[in-house]
């Protein structure tokens, strides 16, 4: 069973998305990337992000991740900020630490693609 299924699948994404997006918008290190005109669309993209980070079904390849993040010139600090907000969200939802560790591993596995290194 994937960690996505263990923490409750789409329902877990639903529970997490508002908390996560709120953290990201309030985080001075990275909010400029997310503070775009259309909050609704960004909100949906956060769902895509969380679904992927939770190891859920996704249609994205490493190449897609490179493309999606290329123009942003992201660095280590940006990545860590997103990871911290992700972990903070999971803690707030009282997700067991072993699952959080699994999710962090998934996030780290796409780090090079996201940072385009």
């Amino acid at each position, binding site marked *: 069973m994937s960690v996505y299924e263990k923490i409750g699948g789409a329902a877990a994404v639903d529970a997490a998305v508002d908390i996560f997006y709120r953290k990201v918008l309030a985080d001075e290190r990275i909010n400029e990337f997310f503070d775009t005109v259309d*909050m609704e669309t960004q909100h949906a993209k956060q769902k895509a992000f969380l679904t992927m980070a939770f190891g859920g079904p996704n249609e994205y390849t490493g190449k897609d991740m490179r493309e999606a993040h290329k123009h942003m010139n992201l660095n280590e600090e940006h990545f860590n900020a997103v990871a911290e907000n992700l972990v903070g969200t999971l803690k707030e939802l009282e997700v067991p630490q072993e699952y959080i560790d699994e999710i962090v591993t998934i996030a780290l596995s796409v780090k090079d693609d996201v940072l385009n290194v």
Partner: protein
Amino acid sequence: MAKLFFDGKAVPIGPSESILDALLRDGYNVPYGCKSGACQSCMLQAQSGELPANCQPGLSDSLKQLGYFLSCSCYPKADATLQVHSSPDSVQKVPAVVKEKTFIGKNTLRLRLRAAINYQPGQYLTVWKDAKLARSYSIASVASLQPELEFHIKHIPQGEFSNWVATALQTGDTLYLQGPMGTCFYTSGKPEQPLVLAGIGTGLAPLYGILREALEQQHSGEVFLYVGAKSSENFYYVEKLKQLESSYSNVQVKFICQHTTADHSGDYYVPGDIYEIIKQRHPDMKQHKIFLCGAESFVRKLKKQCFLAGANMNEILVDTFLAFKS
């Protein structure tokens, strides 16, 4: 076996097949992403027929009420007949007869029309003058309270449409309506939830409809209405709202403006900044349902503010007035 129709055409669907899979198999180009009910890219609207349980996860109450569902997660019941639309907004035009046209504020016209249209107060309609000229306006009326549809139109002398309404349109004339559209309306089911309604200018139109509808449905939680304007001379419906406030103990109305003209001073108008006032009065919006109506910059700024104050994204409904680009 379930019967499925997509834009009027029958689509075969297997007993354990999702609507998305049935449409894709039949050659329709329906967008999708996760196929697991998370990304909402496969959302469609059912025009008629009973939707099965669990096909609307994460959707707002208003989307649910309008029959929107996630096609990847929708497995119709064996005896169901479902009519599904690809583009819910492409509906026919309906004639409407002008019953009344009055100035209700300095630059604000009230138009009342008679038309056979089912709507929720707060939704919007596109109003066509002829085959070429149209604008969208939000609905201020409640069908159970008055037979006519009501719009509040800001009169812009250089505006092609509003100036035509102000100067040429007559009682008895026929216009054409398309819609309704939009998800900014009251849904029953949480009568105790605190409501915050905020709008600038004729953003009051949908809010007025939403407020009246909430009261008609016996909403018992507190209802806060904030109406903003640059100058106090732009306010309208002040007496009507004062009356509602005194008839319903759970309703509070504040008119907020940057400038108060001398003859409009008095304690009813609050000078100041609508964002600050809402922030101070509602530091925690976790439980609230929020309706925001007005220009794009206003809606966007306040939506973010409310979301950061803890409001659930699905509980923030907006009606954005887009500036007409010629």
